[in-house]
């Protein structure tokens, strides 16, 4: 069954209710996701999620050079990648990116 926007909306509502915040940084902390800000001299990316499969640890890295106002959305977008990643089958390509953007908007505007 494909992942619907309604399902994502419900996830976000439950998540925000459970942890009492819609701040993507605090949500990441609540979910034991490490946030790490870096500067690699490149300004064409905002945030990335990486997982170490052996330990299961997730890290969201944020580009220190990205505009500050875009970083919270970037973290929310990567949070959505991590949440969706647990699903099987995993949406791919553009569908995945559209769903992550949708979920990030849901987090930010709540």
């Amino acid at each position: 069954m494909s992942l619907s926007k309604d399902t994502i909306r419900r996830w976000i509502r439950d998540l925000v209710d459970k942890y009492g915040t819609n701040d993507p940084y605090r949500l990441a902390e609540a979910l034991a996701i490490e946030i790490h800000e870096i500067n690699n001299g490149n300004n064409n990316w905002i945030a990335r999620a990486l997982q170490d499969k052996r330990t299961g640890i997730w890290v969201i890295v944020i580009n220190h050079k990205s505009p500050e106002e875009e970083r919270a959305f970037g973290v929310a977008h990567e949070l959505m990648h991590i949440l969706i990643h647990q699903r099987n089958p995993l949406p791919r390509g553009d569908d995945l990116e559209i769903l992550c953007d949708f979920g990030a908007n849901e987090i930010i505007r709540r």
Partner: protein
Amino acid sequence: MMEIGKAEALLNAQIFSKGSEDLSEHFISAAKQILKNIREKNNPVDLKVTDLTDEVIRQLTARMTRQYATSNPLELAERVGLHIVNVDDGRTDWTGRLLTRDGVWLLLINKNLNDNEYRETVASFVIARELLPRLSNWPQGVDQTFIHEVTAAGMVILFSDI
């Protein structure tokens, strides 16, 4: 064998010395070729796991310390672009994990390590960070034990000034 730093210094001194106009183009060209050969020997780009002798690791580590002018593992990590993320997951069965994506290199390091283990783990993974892009066949399922073993020879250089 002449070390690369000495060869560079000698070549520069020859070229820019007062008598440089006496040097023939032929000499400079030959010297540059020798330097190139030394560089390639010290900076191999298509290593195989079977090439990873202690001597290769030592050369790689020594080159790194010269290039970045430090043998402090934490300073080296910063200079080679290896970002350290301290993780406290309550477990003690791992030391460090290397993650890379889109040119970003992260070292997850276990916060529960003692000071020596922490420093050695950083050193080990700094060497691995330099090594990995030069390897043509990093084996599947490589783990921290393998990295610690492979990089051990370089540790002597990084910790020689402590």
